[in-house]
């Protein structure tokens, strides 16, 4: 036993070091090839529009939904007699001031799309909106028209138009934006759901 211990020590001394070590470094390049474009969106939306939000300004609310819009200025008319009636021909009271243009009311559908894109020749992407149904019908003969559509994303080129352009955001943090539909409430005569079969707008994402 003692003899073996002496032999082992001799071997360690002969090796010249306690341990052997080899070290190597490697360089790594990552080449992303091709392109990827991902459009996330809500395909079924419903917007509840409380009519009180269309309440006129400059009028007095008798109740939450009933307004009186008095023109206090003296209106003078010269009466005429016709058919046994004395007619005082006033012109109709002026239209109240509504908070939105009822024939062209911008409805902003906020945060309804998100784009993730990478690659492409210019490292940009375009998002376009095209209109579908232009008339939503409601109870009875009530209808709401859709007269224009646009996409919105702050900082994009041609923002708030039918086609916007922006730099590819990558895949992790999407670019999120809105759709604007302009409504014509001329023929909206009843409350209730106004809808149509099919789609009201189509979004098209293109990685350019």
């Amino acid at each position, binding site marked *: 036993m003692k003899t073996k211990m002496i032999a082992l020590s001799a071997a360690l001394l002969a090796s010249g070091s306690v341990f052997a070590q080899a070290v190597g*470094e490697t*360089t*790594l390049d990552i080449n992303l090839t091709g392109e990827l474009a991902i459009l996330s969106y809500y395909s079924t939306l419903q917007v509840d529009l409380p009519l009180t*939000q269309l309440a006129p300004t400059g009028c007095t609310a008798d109740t939450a939904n009933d307004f009186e819009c008095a023109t206090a200025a003296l209106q003078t008319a010269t009466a005429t007699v016709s058919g046994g009636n004395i007619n005082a021909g006033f012109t109709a009271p002026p239209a109240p001031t509504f*908070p939105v243009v009822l024939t062209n009311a911008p409805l902003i559908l906020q945060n309804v799309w998100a784009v993730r894109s990478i690659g492409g020749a210019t490292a940009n992407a375009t998002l376009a909106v095209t209109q579908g149904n232009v008339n939503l019908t409601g109870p009875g003969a009530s209808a709401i028209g859709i007269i224009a559509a646009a996409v919105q994303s702050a900082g994009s080129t041609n923002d708030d138009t039918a086609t916007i352009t922006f730099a590819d955001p990558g*895949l992790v943090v999407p670019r999120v934006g809105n759709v604007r539909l302009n409504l014509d409430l001329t023929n909206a005569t009843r409350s209730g759901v106004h809808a149509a079969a099919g789609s009201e707008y189509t979004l098209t994402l293109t990685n350019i």
Partner: protein
Amino acid sequence: MRYKQRCKLPALVAVALGIGLSSAAWSAATGNSSTALNLTGRLAVLSYYSNLAVDLPLTQLAPTNCTADTPNDFECANTALRTRTTTRVGGELRANFNPVTGLLNVNFPVNLINAPLILQNVWAVRTIGGTGLLGATSSLTLALLNPLTPLSNGASQVGLATLSVPGLIHNDTSGVIGNNTPVTGFTDAGLVNARTGSVRINLNFLNTTLSGNHTRAGSEYRLTLTNL
């Protein structure tokens, strides 16, 4: 007397020759030799690729819960009815469909901010002669170099994710990738049959906005082989 000696000499030669012939035909002489080969010291050989380029087709990152319009373009429709009540801001009617729980739920096949990239079969180790306390063993360790400096292509970056410790993966005897643990304290396999394996580096695509080659100066990782 001298004559007799001369006459005997040819006979003696003939006898000796006859013995020699008969020995080659049916007799054998064998000898055993005891030879000891003493391998002294130790040897550790690390073979590796020092210059790697990985092509990553972006379609491999395509989401799994979306519809492909083309091989590269996907639409991810959230079909559930979403209802919002408008608010009026100025002359606009706004319906805010907060996307936090809707549009952001795109399922990618990898975790894009901590994506494991497995560089398969990029190292081979041959070791012999360890004399450590554990016996004939060696260790191989991996170190990321400058992990906070991303690979870049212009403004686009691919980060070396530090959320996960980079790992070494060794192949088992069938050549299949084994577990995902660092290779330490493995038994010396000798010089003929190398122990081979892979390197796992986790990538962060948070700031990756361009395709193309992402690179940087210097090396990304270092392997250190130690024969204990």
